[in-house]
């Protein structure tokens, strides 16, 4: 029967508000339990 996905979606950050956000670029870990700290996403700095 599956499960209520609201808490899983919440832990992923989907959908936070009416706006649409990308989540895979800041994805910490497949499991909420191993996602207790944020990770550095890609970025680039002009010269």
């Amino acid at each position: 029967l599956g499960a209520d996905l609201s808490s899983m979606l919440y832990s992923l950050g989907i959908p936070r508000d009416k706006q649409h956000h990308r989540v895979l670029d800041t994805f910490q870990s497949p499991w909420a339990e191993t996602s207790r700290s944020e990770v550095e996403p890609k970025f680039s700095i002009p010269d």
Partner: protein
Amino acid sequence: TVNEKYSLVFTEWVKLLQKVDIEDSVVLIFIKQMMDKGILSESDNMIKFMKCALELSVSSFKESDPTGEVFTAIDALGKLIIKLLIFQEFSDYYRGDFLNTIYSTILLVFAEDHEQETFNERPYFRLLSNLFYEWSNIRGHKFSSIKDVKIRKELYTFDIEFYNISATYLHSFQPFAFPGFSFAWVSLISHRMFLPQILRLPDKSGWEKLTLLIIDLFKFLDQYTKRGIVSDAISVVYKGTLRVILGISNDVPDFLIENHYELMNNLPATYFQLKNVILSSIPKKKIVPNPYDPNLNMADVELCQQKPSIFYDPVKDLQSLKKPVDNYLRIPSNSLLKAILNGLYRTEYDVKIGVGYDYLSIDNKLVRGVVLHVGIEAGLENERTSSSAVFNTKSSYYTLLYNLINEGSTELRYQILQVMLEQLRYPNIHTYWFSYVLLNMFTSKEFGSNISEIQEIMLRCLLERVIVNKPHTWGIIVFFTQLLQNKEVNILELDFIKNIPEIENILEQS
């Protein structure tokens, strides 16, 4: 010994990187000296050195205070590999060969370590994570951080290959091969420096390999999802899988939409919620009418005229059935029907745990291929000629499916109807056409005494998708509403419904 010498050199490298910035010229000089001494310039030596460095880094991890810096050596190794990947003079051999050699070396050291009592997946995870991180760092804005124009161009051209080679090796590291690496593996295929990049490569160049990796995961889950007790570890793998797929559905729904056929072919048969998650994906920026609106009519929804994109053409899987199916669609005949029907049965049973069954005598993947191919052809015909050519119970598209169901065994009926219901997704021509076909079949007078079983199977397939927790696909909801509202067949009066009070209850409430 050579190994001792290499250990010393690598240790110096690690120490150096702790003292100076990676961009410091001293670092390049160190590498150049390694090359001049033949450590890195000859492939045999390079492999020996890498093996030594990796073994040393893994030992260093195992011996380090777990509360301190455990990855220093591994991090330094990652940086060395990337420097070599970028700055070597690739004259004798090619950058791709170098990357393959590195990955092969890692794989072999890893393979031996995996069988030891002391194996720990974390340093290997860290190394691969670092390679993804370093590559992601330099590839920003078309590798603008690389000053040398020639190298920048080479790297830009190599980008797609970097991901495809990495994916190929991840395929070798899959859980069936290395169960002790399973959780690291799921973390790697969903890594923020790998997954969104491989999803977004130009021309979907990474999709084929990525689908392969997800299929590896599904197959592993399928093998160890048994009736009754599922081990905790497998449950956790499942949860992670679900979460990753939800992430993909949010960021790049088109990947799930266009690859749904292959994903459905490999998804464990009892994973209905995950099935719904994949099939509920809606293309970005599409505004979809409320499926719960009882007045909704697919005929009025413009989106329902559009053909959905398909990345992998199922026609490739039809093998010997391609000709008879295409011929039948042109000119239906009984002999063609018989050929197709016979072709769908397996020669040997296949063990497959489903809801209410343990094995298949039907080739369910072939069924899916045939059904989707028919749907694709119907969609093309709809565009080419007119909707009356396909929204027509006399059309060959309809009659093929009708006849397969009519003549088929109970099991075949179940597989066909289940696959047809899979096509009820977001508003598009397939969703529209298959709901037309299903509704007509449900209320058809042509099935004779077979109708009762067909109706029962259709409702069972529908309920399987609706009873589970959300999400539910747009097409399933709309079709369900249509079925409940239809005037020709009173569902609640059907014998098989009245015989099962729980189901009667559900349908009454619906």
